[in-house]
Each structure stands twice: as structure tokens, then as C-alpha cells.
């Protein structure tokens, strides 16, 4: 009797022990629904084959020109899942991927394009393309993970309001688990330049400061759940492991809060799943000279949109950081299909005293060039002869045209003492900068200006995966092909960027379209005296109204004329 009880307790304990580490229920992934294959094949060969290939090998016609290559289905390796690392996905995972697309890659969201039944069918067809594994094999048991739930009850789209203490705790966990080894010191994905995926293709870590490019964002970019899922399940086929044994579920939410706190809140376009660019770069009038130091508080501002999170008092007067969308130059000459930078941030001040304008250009770049033959570079492009342009006319946005030349300010630079495999360096790297001023009459008709240099780079740095370059130029100059920058007028401006590490040079670069910039005037003095004057006038008007009304009443009361009778 006693023995029996002992045995029972022991076996019970053993059962608990076995089930403890997993904490998840074993189940089978949904088997392939063979009835849907014919329909799924139709969808696949019309919509998917172009990237994913005839056999699902991720080798369609477009594959070689995409960075983040299309998925190879053959091994059954799927990144965004709720199942444990290395396991097959649930059908719902794949359906969500097809519906929402994979942000930051060429995979679009199909949810609004295909009907629900078509999506289910094509997902089943994709499952049938998996050759190395079998969705109905008994050994393919999967464990759907426990993700806990959002402890702060924050809601979309921006998930604001997580306590700072939890974000700070998340940062501690980030350091303790050495996430910076791949994701970099400030999460810009600048940790490890040598990573490869399961098929040997180069791969980079996610940039946490651009969460709209998270593959698993599911078009819900700021939801910390996305991060919790990735930490819990890892990303199959990539060097991203899971941390479910190292980090408790509660702590995973905290690290997710930290990761999310890094991503600036921006208005994300529903259709393109990217932040909406700021098409007008406003240069703020500065009393006295502008500080030539990037670290100066006068250059400090928030990446987050002031309409989403109000700008703090001390930054209210500072210029806004403008978001400039970038793409590969895929129009002329040597085309760039896989740019490594997809946005720049531009901040600007100008000073009447110095008669000069400053543009601070920043962008994320995971790794800098180490080859002096291919330095990194960033440029600002202007119409060279602004006064000759009529109406909305501009030079051709890719380095001008024969009739309308452009003025290009190009800063080329190499980071000093830089090694991409170094541990994160909080002070950053100094840059060796040289400035070129170029007249462009087409991408194949560039000439360096012979006159002495007028554009200066007054400060620059490469820090934690971010390049910052501060340009300065006087507003009016002598040169025939120098842009003469007027105040209070809209001036076309655009940007180029070259990643030296990817051997980008000349027209093989990243490019923006034409933006406008305006040198805003100082605030008019009338701003301070006009409102009280108008208010005072209004008070007088109110007094008059009271006097008139009382007088009319008196006239009625004295019987001078009857109410509702036109006075004679």
C-alpha cells in the first residue's frame, strides 16, 4: 500500500518534470488538404512563382535581384511561427504571413488582393512544396509556445504607455543576453557582418529602430507581441535562436518593451507599410550663429512624430527631424536593386548672422566601408540654376539633365580605426571626410567644380550603426553652378547615398525623389502684440454690444416704441 502511493507520487513528479521545460502542448501541424491543391496551384503559378520559383526553391526570376531573398520552401523552414525553433509552422502562421506580407521585403500583403479561400488554398499548395519534411508525419509533432499576454494592456497602433521601469529592465536583459552581439549597441542591427542563413546567403540582424521593416510585424508594427514571438520561437533558417529557456515569459515582454521603445512612432502608410515621408524640410531660423557640433542641444530632436507624442518643452523650438524615403537607383545606368539604406533623416537650421544654412543628414548603416576605393558617401542635390526654373520645373532627379544642371554636395568618408566586428563603441568613430562639389548634367555627364570649395562638413560621426554628417554652406556664392539659396521660398532638394561596403559608386546608389526645403523666417514680432490687441478690440465690441442691448431695452421700457415693431 505504502509502496503504491510512493510509486504514484514518484510517477506524478516525473510527469511534471518532463512537462516542465516545454510548458507547451504537443500537437500535429495541420496536414495538407489535398482537395485545395488544384486551386492553390492556380494561385501559386499566377502570383507566387515569379519569386518563389517553379518548385518553391526561392529561385524565381526575381530572386537574384532581391536582398532578403524569397523563401525556399523545399526544406520546410519558415521564419514567422508560433511553434518551437526548427519545427514546422501552423497553418494559421502561413495564412497570416500571406495575408499581411513580410514587411521590409518584397513580399506584399495579399489579404486585400486574394479571397480568403484562395489564401488557404495557396498555403496548402505551398505546404505541398515542402519536400524534405512531411506535415502528416508523426515525428513532426509541434509545440505551440506560450507567449503570456501583454502585461500593460497597451493598444495599437502605437502601444504607448509602457512604464519606463519595465523598459529599463528590458535593457538590462538585452545586455545580459548579449543581444547586441548581432543587433548592435543601440539595436540598429550593426553587430555582426558575417552572418549567413541556412542556405549560405548573407543575412543581417533586424534594425530595431525601424520596426516597420520587421518581417514578422504583421502590419501591426509597434505591437510588442511581435518581438515576444520572435524571442520565444527564434527565426528558422537564420542565426536568430530562441531564448525561451534563458528568458522567462515576463522578461520577454520587458525586452520587447525595450525593443519597441527604440522604434520612433511614425505615421505608417497603410498601403505601402512605410512611414509617410516629410516632403517639406523646414530649416529653422537661428538667432546668432548655428552650433557646428552635432552633440549640441540645439541639434537635438525626436525621431517620433510630434503629432503622436507631443514634443517635450526643451525641444519645442528645435528643428524637426524630417524622414526622407530612399530607394535603389533602378532607373539609369548601373542600377542598384538592393540598397542597404531605405531612409535618411534631415534636420536643418540657418542663421542670418552667418548668412549660412546647415543640413544635418543622418542614416542607419549597419557596416561601414573598409576599402578606400569605395568610401561611404552621402550627397545633397540642388538645382544649380534655381532662378532659371519656371513654375514647378526642376532638373531631372537623377543628377540633372543637359538643359537644367544640378549642384551636388557630396561628402565621402571613411570611419577611422573601424572594424566591423568590434564590440559596440558608445563614443562612435570619427570620420575622415572629404567634400566634392559636382555639377551634374545627367548621370553620365558629371564634372567636379573647379572653383574653391564652399560646402563644408563641419562635424560628422559614425556611432552605433548611424552616420551623421553636418553640411554647411553660405546662402549666396559666386559660382555659376552654385545653388543660390533664398529664404522663405520653396527650394527643390534631393538626396543620394552610397554604401561603400556594397561597392556602390557613381549612379549605383540609393536615391530620393525631389523634396522641398524652406528657410523659415524668424517669428514675426506681431505674433506677440497682435493677439492681445485683437482681443482688446473684441472686448470693446462686447462692451458696445452690452450698451446697445441695454439701450434697446430701455427704449422698449420707456415705451418709445413697441417690441417687434419696426421703429419709425
Amino acid at each position, binding site marked *: 500500500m505504502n509502496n503504491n502511493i510512493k510509486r504514484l507520487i514518484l510517477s506524478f513528479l516525473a510527469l511534471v518534470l518532463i512537462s516542465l521545460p516545454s510548458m507547451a502542448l504537443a500537437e500535429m501541424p495541420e496536414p495538407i488538404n489535398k482537395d485545395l491543391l488544384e486551386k492553390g496551384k492556380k494561385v501559386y503559378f499566377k502570383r507566387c512563382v515569379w519569386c518563389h520559383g517553379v518548385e518553391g526553391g526561392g529561385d524565381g526570376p526575381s530572386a537574384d535581384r532581391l536582398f532578403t531573398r524569397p523563401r525556399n520552401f523545399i526544406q520546410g523552414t519558415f521564419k514567422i511561427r508560433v511553434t518551437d525553433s526548427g519545427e514546422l509552422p501552423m497553418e494559421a502562421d502561413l495564412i497570416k504571413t500571406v495575408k499581411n506580407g513580410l514587411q521590409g521585403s518584397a513580399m506584399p500583403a495579399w489579404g486585400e488582393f486574394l479571397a480568403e479561400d484562395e489564401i488557404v488554398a495557396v498555403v496548402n499548395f505551398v505546404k505541398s512544396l515542402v519536400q524534405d519534411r512531411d506535415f502528416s508525419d508523426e515525428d513532426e509533432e509541434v509545440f505551440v509556445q506560450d507567449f503570456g499576454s501583454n502585461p500593460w494592456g497597451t493598444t495599437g497602433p502605437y502601444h504607448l504607455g509602457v512604464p519606463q521601469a519595465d523598459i529599463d529592465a528590458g535593457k538590462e536583459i538585452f545586455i545580459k543576453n548579449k543581444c547586441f552581439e548581432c543587433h548592435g549597441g543601440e539595436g540598429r542591427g550593426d553587430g555582426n557582418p558575417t552572418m549567413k542563413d541556412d542556405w549560405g546567403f548573407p543575412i543581417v540582424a533586424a534594425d530595431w529602430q525601424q520596426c516597420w521593416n520587421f518581417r514578422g510585424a504583421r502590419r501591426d508594427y509597434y505591437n510588442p507581441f511581435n518581438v515576444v514571438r520572435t524571442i520565444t520561437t527564434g527565426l528558422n533558417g537564420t542565426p536568430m535562436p530562441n531564448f525561451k529557456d534563458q528568458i522567462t515569459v515576463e522578461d520577454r515582454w520587458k525586452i520587447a518593451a525595450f525593443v519597441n521603445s527604440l522604434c520612433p512612432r511614425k505615421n505608417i502608410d497603410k498601403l505601402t507599410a512605410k512611414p509617410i515621408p516629410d516632403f*517639406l524640410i523646414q530649416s529653422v531660423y537661428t538667432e546668432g550663429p548655428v552650433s557646428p557640433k552635432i552633440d549640441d542641444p540645439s541639434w537635438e530632436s525626436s525621431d517620433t512624430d510630434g503629432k503622436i507624442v507631443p514634443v517635450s518643452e526643451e525641444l519645442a523650438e528645435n528643428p524637426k527631424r524630417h524622414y526622407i524615403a530612399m530607394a535603389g537607383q533602378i532607373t539609369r545606368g548601373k*542600377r542598384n536593386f538592393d540598397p542597404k539604406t531605405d531612409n535618411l533623416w534631415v534636420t536643418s537650421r540657418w542663421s542670418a548672422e552667418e548668412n549660412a544654412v546647415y543640413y544635418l543628414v543622418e542614416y542607419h548603416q549597419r557596416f561601414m566601408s573598409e576599402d578606400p576605393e569605395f568610401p561611404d558617401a552621402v550627397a545633397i542635390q540642388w538645382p544649380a540654376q534655381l532662378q532659371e526654373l519656371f513654375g514647378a520645373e526642376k532638373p531631372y532627379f537623377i543628377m540633372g539633365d543637359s538643359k537644367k544642371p544640378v549642384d551636388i554636395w557630396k561628402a565621402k568618408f571613411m570611419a577611422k580605426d573601424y572594424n566591423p566586428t568590434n564590440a559596440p563603441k558608445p563614443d562612435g568613430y570619427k570620420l575622415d571626410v572629404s567634400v566634392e562639389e559636382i555639377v551634374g548634367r545627367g548621370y553620365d555627364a558629371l564634372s567636379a567644380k573647379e572653383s574653391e570649395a564652399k560646402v563644408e562638413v563641419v562635424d560628422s560621426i559614425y556611432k552605433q550603426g548611424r552616420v551623421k554628417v553636418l553640411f554647411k554652406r553660405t546662402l549666396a556664392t559666386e559660382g555659376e553652378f552654385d545653388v543660390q539659396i533664398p529664404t522663405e521660398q520653396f527650394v527643390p532638394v534631393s538626396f543620394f547615398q552610397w554604401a561603400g561596403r556594397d561597392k556602390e559608386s557613381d549612379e549605383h546608389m540609393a536615391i530620393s525623389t525631389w523634396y522641398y526645403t524652406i528657410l523659415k523666417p524668424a517669428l514675426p514680432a506681431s505674433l506677440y502684440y497682435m493677439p492681445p490687441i485683437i482681443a482688446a478690440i473684441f472686448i470693446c465690441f462686447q462692451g458696445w454690444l452690452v450698451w446697445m442691448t441695454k439701450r434697446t431695452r430701455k427704449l422698449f421700457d420707456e415705451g418709445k416704441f413697441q417690441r417687434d415693431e419696426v421703429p419709425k
Partner: protein
Amino acid sequence: MNKGLISFLVFVVGLAVFHNAIFPIFTPSEPGWILNRYVYFLAFVAYLIITNLVLRLKPPIAMMALFVWCLGFYFYDHILSPHVPWTLFITYMMMWSIGTFLYVSQDADTFREFRQPIVKTIVGEYKLARIIVFTALPILVGFATYNSIYPSFQEPVELRTVHPAPPATTKVHGKTYPLESTNNPFRIDEQDNYKDSFPFLDADKHEYMKYVTEGGTIFFQNCHYCHGDQLNGLGMFSHVFNPTPANFIDPGTIAMLQEAFLFWRVSKGGPGLPNESTPWSSAMPPWEEHLKTDEIWKVILFEYWYTGWHPRTFGTEGSEGE
């Protein structure tokens, strides 16, 4: 209790309850004959009228005017769907305000009754009301002045012609094509016969599908960055460029154009546009620099096959999509 106050509460509390609790019931994802937002609005108006009648509240005319005006605002701002543009909204509300005013000034008695609370506020019989109104209004006016003087800058609006008039002829790779009489040399069969065929798999079986496959291959090596995997103009680079890339699914693009027009636009790209179409900011390459003539025609063939549109031809007017 003051009947006017009760009437006011009936309106405010009623609106809060109706808007937060009942409105969601009447706006399901698939609106029906009963469950739609307009029926909801009628129900709310009926509730107001019936409650006021049954309780014999007889609110003062100024309050009735306020109710009527608010109902109009609520209707145009929340019920009418989709929301009308801002300028139209202002126009509607002006009309509605005039209508409300006509309603209160229909005869001398109602107009006097309507004026009464206003006059009483002005002369100071309603002391608290006068203090509040006479302090708040100058402050508001001051703020409005500040806002109107504060310099603000909006980027200039630029208009452009999306489909400019084509030239009579275009010269591509040394050969001159008259646009009016040029047809796609690869359109060798009726497109609809291949609606359900497979690219790649059927490329060996049907010559037509071979061309579609080749065209698609070129499209997905060159064009999808802007025009998108779905040919809807939402490719991964599309958000960068202004003008935004053309959406081929839209009935206003390739569906209403001839193939020869497309051939001209594809071959000459942005730089080939006339000035009214802002050639300086179009990211469309002059594809003659990158593709052969045949490849351009095959891409065009593919675009029609994928979207299901038919190119416009002389003789037939419209074209049909999926």
C-alpha cells in the same frame, strides 16, 4: 426639476448612450436594410422627439435650436459615410445653420423666445453665463489671431498630367513605329483563352504562354520594385517616388490605353514625358536603355494577361477586367 434641464440631459445622455452603445450595433461590417447607420440616426431622432413629447418637456426654443443644430453636425460629421471633404462639410453646416435660424425666426414669438436667453446673458441677468462667455470669447479670439499669424508652410501642390498625349511616332532601337497602327507582335491569340493557363508549366505547350512567361520574368526582374508584385503600383520602392508608380489593376491605366501607347511610355520612360507630366521626377526608366524591343512587348503582354484587362483597340470602346 427644471424641465429644460431634463430635456438637456435627455439629449446629452441619450447621445452618449446611443453613440457608444447602440451605434456599434448598427454598423456591422456588412450593413443591412435595418442595421445601418442611417436607420440608427432616425432611431436617435425618434427617441428625442418621443421622449420630449411623452415627458411634456417643451424645451425653450433656444435649446431646441441647439439640438437641431447639433443633430445636423452629428449627422454630417459622424453618420454620413464616407465623410464629406472639409470644405463641403463647412458648406453643409452653413446651410444647416441658416435652416436652423429660419426655424427659430419663423414668427415673432419664437424669435423673441430664442433671443431671450442671449439677451439675458448680454445684459447680465444670467450673471455666471455672462462672465464665462465674455471672458472666454476674447481669449479664443486672441488664440485664433495667434494661430493665423504664426508662420506655417505647406509644401506646394503640384499637378501633373498622368496620361499625356502621345506623339504620332516613336523611334526605338533605330526603328520608327507609328503609334496608331502598331500592334503587339506577340499578341498571337485571344488572351482570354489563356486565363487559367500556368506560366512556366504551359510555356512549352502554348507559344502564347511562353511569351507571357518571358514577359513576367522580365517584369519580376525589373518592374516589380515600383509597380508591385500585384501590379498595383505598390512595389517595395513605390513609396519613395513622386509621382507614385502606375497601378495597372486600376481601370484608369492600362485598361483604357492602347498597347502602342504603353510601348511608347515604356521605351521612353520619365525623360520622354512632356513638361506637363513632370519628366524631372518620374522614376520610370527609358527601358530602351535596358531592354530589347521584343522584351518590352512581352512585358506589355504579361501585364494584360496578369490583370485580365484587354488593351484598348480601335473599333471596340471599353475593356473588361477580372
